[in-house]
């Protein structure tokens, strides 16, 4: 089973610091990491390979240093990694991103078919989750988003069944292969990498492609030029008058909070019949 996983390198938004005076991001404070959801996608692919055989390939679009994210995937167990990196890709929104990734996948498919494409549910730098369905549409394969479990893979009949998370529940959905899944964190636990993977990753250099390595690319659809959305104005969120700050020692603070809450008696009224 040939599995392709699209992965993105993102700033670690949990660590990133905002300068409260200028409202801007201190980018140097944020280490770049493998998008956490994509780590789960790679883990899932590695698990499927263990059962069905085949190969796990990762694909990333990003600056040269994104090869670190690919190495992380090799640690998790990916066989191979491709980085498409070129200034002409820069500034892409999700539509231009899915176009570039699609062109790379097409090129990869010249040598090898792909049975399954995996993406993360979303990338934590934007939380959009639009790239996966975009790639699927371009490849002409069904997208199954927010997958929490792969129930069955039937290679003989080229079919799979997955659980797709929806509001308060899930749906069991069947799809023919190839298809594209975007995965949630619940799908698996990313296991600690075995030593041989770590060693392999440390020495690994991914294949790097530029725009010129891809076939039949319409340059107008790439990067900033190929992105229909642009950022207009930016402004800091409106500030209200600000909080009434409760001064005093902790005892006084506690008693003031308790009384201001208890004054709102409707919060504690017994509802009829309960």
């Amino acid at each position: 089973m040939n599995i392709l996983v699209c992965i993105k390198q993102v700033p670690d938004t949990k660590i990133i610091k905002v300068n409260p005076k200028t409202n801007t991001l201190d980018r140097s404070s944020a280490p770049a990491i493998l998008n956490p959801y994509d780590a789960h996608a790679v883990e899932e692919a590695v698990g499927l390979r263990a059962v069905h055989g085949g190969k796990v390939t990762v694909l990333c679009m990003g600056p040269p240093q994104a090869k670190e994210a690919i190495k992380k995937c090799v640690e998790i167990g990916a066989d191979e990694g491709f980085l498409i990196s070129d200034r002409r890709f820069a500034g892409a929104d999700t539509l231009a991103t899915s176009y570039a990734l699609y062109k790379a996948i097409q090129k990869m498919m010249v040598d090898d078919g792909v049975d399954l494409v995996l993406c993360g549910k979303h990338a934590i730098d934007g939380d959009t989750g639009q790239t996966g369905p975009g790639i699927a549409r371009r490849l002409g394969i069904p997208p199954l988003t927010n997958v929490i479990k792969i129930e069955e893979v039937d290679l003989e009949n080229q079919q799979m069944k997955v659980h797709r998370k929806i509001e308060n529940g899930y749906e069991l959905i069947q799809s023919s292969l190839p298809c594209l899944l975007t995965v949630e964190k619940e799908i698996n636990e990313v296991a600690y990498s075995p030593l041989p993977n770590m060693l392999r990753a440390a020495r690994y250099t991914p294949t790097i492609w530029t725009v010129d390595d891809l076939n039949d690319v319409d340059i107008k659809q790439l990067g900033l030029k190929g992105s229909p959305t642009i950022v207009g104005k930016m402004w800091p969120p409106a500030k209200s008058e600000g909080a009434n700050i409760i001064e005093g020692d902790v005892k006084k603070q506690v008693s003031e909070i308790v009384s201001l809450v208890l004054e709102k008696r409707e919060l504690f009224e017994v509802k009829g019949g309960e």
Partner: protein
Amino acid sequence: MNLEEYRGVWVFIEQRNGKLVDVGLELLGAGRDLADKLEVDLCGVLLGHNIKDLSKDLFEYGADKVYVIDDPILEQYRSETYMVAVGDLVRKYKPEIFLYGATSNGKDLASAVATEVMTGLTADTTLLDVDLEKRLFEASRPAFGGNIMATILCKKHRPQMATVRPKVMKKRDREEGRVGELIEESISLQEESLRTKVLEIVRDTKKAVNLEDAVIIVSAGKGIKDEKGLQMVRELADVLNGTVGASRDIVEAGLIGHDHQVGQTGLTVTPKLYFAIGISGAVQHTVGMENSETIVAINNDPDAAIFNVAHHGVVADAFEIVPLLTEEFKKALQEEAKEGGVAHA
């Protein structure tokens, strides 16, 4: 692309089992304002099977027109079928703005349609407007890059599309008897040629958390540090019979499930009382809770942005003050219960 050909504001109307999902009505409310400014029709797009009657509600909530495709093939949501149906409608009728609820299916559909018709899509917007002079849709959302809001524009492509969080926009009051034009369309797909099939839908009826209806929410952020800190917050919530909410950071850290997350990519909540404990007040968080009736913030940093949106603030160490609060509330509520005054809801 001739932008002039594109007119009208569209809203994707999600239904589940023949029942309208609230966010669709909320977007009709928001869409009505946009359509009035632009002096165009507001249209609902309703897909499914045996759902035609729902259009009556859509007119009463503000739609001028409803495009309906009623077909067994559309009974359950599938990207594969909905994407084609909506894509065909867009190509035929050419709307200038198209809104979708940011639900699982709404996001899935919007992403697929954006690629299908090759246009721009802005995710998880919290503020919508139009620039009349340029006739441009202004979809705003908290920007990655700090405590800042950004307007995203789509200048050269149509329709201009956005997903909008549930509960952010307001539905209008129902206008009984308001009518509109129903336009029926069909879909050309055959079941045999489709590649996906929904086999079963499993609803978790004993939904563990219901933040959206909670009267009191006690939310924890990174300041509570770990499991133990979270437990402390849970205890306060228990005493108040409140529900535990969370910032994205502790959700991402794996301390608590995503269904507790408040904010731009979590839930929008409007409880009567919202405690923010150890939450810095990033705009991605505050867009989800700023309309709460009373907000009490606890943070040991006097400059924390959360104090800009809170009504009452205490600069204190959560590890010291929260257990004390729990204890005092427990005493006070027991006391009052004895006196028969305030009962524990």
